[in-house]
């Protein structure tokens, strides 16, 4: 006869308490705000799903969401292949390995707001090194404070500079774990360099690549500090990504209800897309 032992629940309690304090409780306040209206004085009026409806229907939210998806798509399209290419061309052994690894890790060690300020000063027309060089030496009309296209390019290049290393380091870890015998067997089998990549390197990198794509998706989808410091969401609203817009609503306008509803929608989208990525990328293993 099987004995039911309910004692096990007690052992789960500490974790439950921890999760409650760092996730569930703060989250519940957001849920609380998202269904009510407040004018201060701790007075609340029941609003139901009104805020959600308003946010989802608003042009402002849809535009910010569109910009956010565009930004994240560009980041993934550029950083993942670039990261793989850089990882493939890094040396596998010898003196240059640690040098390359340190160089790769450096951008990631810089605090986010510092990255934003660095690129801001670097790219300012007239006084920034790059801004000056592009405008006055190459004669390219570039001004990220005035032109939306310039601002977008700058924000994307900054993120590529900051985060491609993550993809590189993860892919590199996957690559160095491939035993030499695989490359030797491929040589003997007469495989082309493309076949080696397609049938040996890519499959062996798959696990780390899944992690890299997920991390880059989540981080770029939730990005705030760097574009905020660099462009502040401008010129106009052209680089106002979701998180920047959210902070404007919550802290700028102090519309706590709509901001809370937007946070939850934001969170749901991040979760959903991450799940879709994960499911698609691990589909083969399940078979």
């Amino acid at each position: 006869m099987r004995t039911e032992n309910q004692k096990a629940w007690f052992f789960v309690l500490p974790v439950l308490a921890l999760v409650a304090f760092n996730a569930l409780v703060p989250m519940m306040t957001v849920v609380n705000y998202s269904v009510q209206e407040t004018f201060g004085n701790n007075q609340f009026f029941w609003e139901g799903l009104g805020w959600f409806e308003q946010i989802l229907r608003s042009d402002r939210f849809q535009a910010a969401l569109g910009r956010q998806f565009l930004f994240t798509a560009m980041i993934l399209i550029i950083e993942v292949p670039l990261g793989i290419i850089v990882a493939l061309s890094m040396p596998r052994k010898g003196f240059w390995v640690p040098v390359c690894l340190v160089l790769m890790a450096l951008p990631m060690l810089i605090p986010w707001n510092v990255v934003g300020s660095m690129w801001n000063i670097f790219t300012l027309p007239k006084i920034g090194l790059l801004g000056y060089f592009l405008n006055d030496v190459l004669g390219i009309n570039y001004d990220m404070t005035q032109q939306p296209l310039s601002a977008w390019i700058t924000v994307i290049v900054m993120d590529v500079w900051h985060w491609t290393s993550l993809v590189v380091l993860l892919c590199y870890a996957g690559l160095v774990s491939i035993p030499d015998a695989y490359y030797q067997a491929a040589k003997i089998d007469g495989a082309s360099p493309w076949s080696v990549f397609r049938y040996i390197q890519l499959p062996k990198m798959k696990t780390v690549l899944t992690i890299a794509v997920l991390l880059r998706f989540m981080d770029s989808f939730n990005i705030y500090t760097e574009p905020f410091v660099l462009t502040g969401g401008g010129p106009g609203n052209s680089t106002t990504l979701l998180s920047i817009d959210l902070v404007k609503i919550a802290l700028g306008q102090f519309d706590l209800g709509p901001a809370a509803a937007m946070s939850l929608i934001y969170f749901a989208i991040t979760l959903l897309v991450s799940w879709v990525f994960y499911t698609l990328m691990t589909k083969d293993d399940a078979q």
Partner: protein
Amino acid sequence: MAQIKLSNLRHSYMPTPKGPEDYALKEIDVTWRDGGAYALLGPSGCGKSTLLNIISGLLTPSEGQILFDGCDVTALPPDQRNIAQVFQFPVIYDTMTVRENLAFPLKNRGVDPATIARRVDEIAQMLDVTDMLDTRASGLSPDNKQKISMGRGLVRDDVNAVMFDEPLTVIDPHLKWKLRSKLKELHQRVKATMIYVTHDQTEALTFADEVVVMQEGEVVQIGTPVELFERPQHTFVGHFIGSPGMNVLPCEAKGDRAVFEGHEVMLEGPAHGDGGRTDLGIRPEYVGFGDTGIPAHVTKVSDIGRHYVVSAMVGNTALKAVTEHSVPEPGSQVFLQFKPEQSRVYRDGWIATEERAQ
């Protein structure tokens, strides 16, 4: 299929080797007959894998030549040498099915699809993997993966040689003998020259027609399993092959006799040369017990199933004897008799007695 000749081969992993100790391979001269089954046997680090990689073209030797049927291939890359190699750990293209794995070397060489399909079916049948042809290769057990690795080598019907680099290392013991006999069977069917690297004497002796025993970058003896067992050319071979290995006992040589711990032992023939470290070599199988002979004190008797291994002390020297019956008690005094035609003197490791004309 080809005859493989290694001529004055030397290899060092250092850019500027100075003395012989810098060489992983020292002076190798071997000729392997077309269609033979050979084993390279030696302890880890003796240079056997280096030698294998030189033959397959994964490494270029520092000095010397490799000839396939008289043709110098030293400078050719692996894919142009037309060889196949099976590695210690099974190499499988994870994303492909078994069928695609087997077809891969042919596809890369632009063979037409009909021929590929025919060859893959043939090889799959030989290896008993026909029923798993359409499953993903990544899910197979290690022994099946290793079979597929072999299959990828054998699928080309023009291979000069198939090399095995300790292919049974990761295979479960009870499947080892199965795969080994499969290999032997394959060799008889495809008749390709096969070279098998291992540090396991059982694998080497059961697989090969001829075994090349290596030690510290040198070939110490090439011979059939019987030759290696019956007449080791070097104490290393005697010790490395056989279980337990040959007794190597310090002695003095006097014509066709050796003096060991004050007792005279008849040798197979007169020992030549003088000086150096002189040892008497005799296999435990040829040490018998009798009423007269060399007095010894039995220290231990191990029952290893088929026979008993008796450890004994003669003076201050330990030796082993193998016996099937008349097992002495540990602690008892016995008399040992050495079979003269199996007693040899080795000087500095190398055999120094001549076989007596029969």
